[in-house]
């Protein structure tokens, strides 16, 4: 098993901690893992991304230059990284903040209106976990149980009260996958207009 996951978005969207959660879950399941951020000065507004490698064999290079999975939390991320995905790879797109579709035909792309779904759940902050839930449900790279266990370790104690909400988000993402059944590459999924939150349940992944 080998997955190289690239998670990218605006600074502040929590892409780094989502990656850490994923890496930690991999470690919990006894895999070799590495997590590596693109880091920048403190100022907000730029893009942030991190690469997580999860593998049954020792990891030689921790760099994720050719991801097997891309999670694009906003439009610039999709534009910047779409082409780096390996042929046959998977792209998850946060359709709430993207407004465009992936152009490649040799990868599978899924569109999740994560911001709207998250706001519905009660906090836009869990948008990333909605997509993460979908991703692990689809790829099986780690088990939901491992993620749940890791949440406790990764979140600082004073944030443990957020765990139920995070689990809900993960489950909502997984639900999208479970409910869609067979997924077709390029997924003939439509995506909502900006702000058209009411459509979100109709689209899913």
């Amino acid at each position, binding site marked *: 098993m080998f997955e190289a996951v690239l998670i990218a978005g605006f600074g502040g969207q929590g892409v780094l901690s989502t990656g850490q959660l994923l890496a930690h879950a991999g470690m919990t399941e006894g895999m070799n893992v590495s997590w590596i951020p693109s880091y920048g*000065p*403190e*100022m*907000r*507004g*730029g893009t942030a991304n991190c690469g997580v490698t999860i593998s049954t064999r020792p990891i030689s290079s921790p760099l994720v230059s050719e991801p097997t999975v891309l999670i694009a939390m906003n439009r610039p991320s999709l534009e910047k990284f779409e082409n780096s995905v390996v042929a046959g790879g998977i792209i998850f797109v946060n359709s709430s903040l993207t407004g465009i579709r992936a152009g490649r035909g040799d990868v599978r792309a899924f569109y999740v209106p994560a911001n709207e779904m998250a706001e519905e759940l009660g906090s836009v902050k869990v948008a990333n976990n909605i997509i993460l839930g979908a991703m692990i449900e689809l790829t099986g790279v780690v088990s939901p149980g491992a993620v749940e266990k890791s949440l406790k370790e990764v979140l600082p104690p004073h944030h443990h009260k957020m765990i139920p909400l995070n689990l809900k988000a993960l489950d909502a993402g997984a639900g999208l996958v479970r409910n869609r059944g067979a997924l077709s590459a390029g997924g003939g999924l439509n995506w909502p207009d900006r702000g058209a939150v009411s459509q979100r349940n109709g689209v899913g992944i």
Partner: protein
Amino acid sequence: MKDMPFHYCPGCTHGIVHRLVAEAIDELDIFGRSVAVGPVGCSVFCYDYFDCDAYQAAHGRAPAVATGVKRVLPDRVVFTYQGDGDLAAIGTGEIVHAAARGENFTVIFVNNAIYAMTGGQMAPTTLLGQVTTTTPYGRSREINGCPVKMSEMLSALDGTAYVARVSAHSPANVAKAKKAVKKAFEIQMRGLGFTMVEVLSTCPTNWGLSPLKALQWLEENMIPHYPLGEYKNPAEVV
């Protein structure tokens, strides 16, 4: 000012201070002969916004760079823009001696009580008890000493012509800040010596506060320790 969006966080008062400097340059009609010397800190890209000729100085060394520039080009209007880490920590020697020599340039000193760019570490200006990434238990007087008051300290030097501390936390204070910045430039243009305007400023991101709460925190916590006012005026001006 070049028309490009600032890279600062939402509500960061660096942007306000930038505007004040730009307005002073415009109102004094000195754009063509202005030279900016930028720091290392969140405002490291300030040269992108000030559209005049500019230098990106090493961390803390803007006063030395400005000295080099001004000594070669004495008729230009030279200013440095520096954060509190830049000016009050690593750059202590340079600012003290530029002031002592009475170097004829203007220092815009943005004091936000923290090293913002590098992720919110304690600065010499951090308040007692303030939690930062390097004072996780709050700044303690026993370990780190008291916050350093640069305006007071530099005013004690014979070489300083004009030193004022202003704040960016409310419209009235911004208006006063604007006057101080302009006055500093004017004094420089008259060749009267070293001028510095310390602007109390916010860092919502590293303070962990909303932009608005940050302004309040500034008012309630910083101003009592860093009283506002003009600390020094040149004899020629008083």
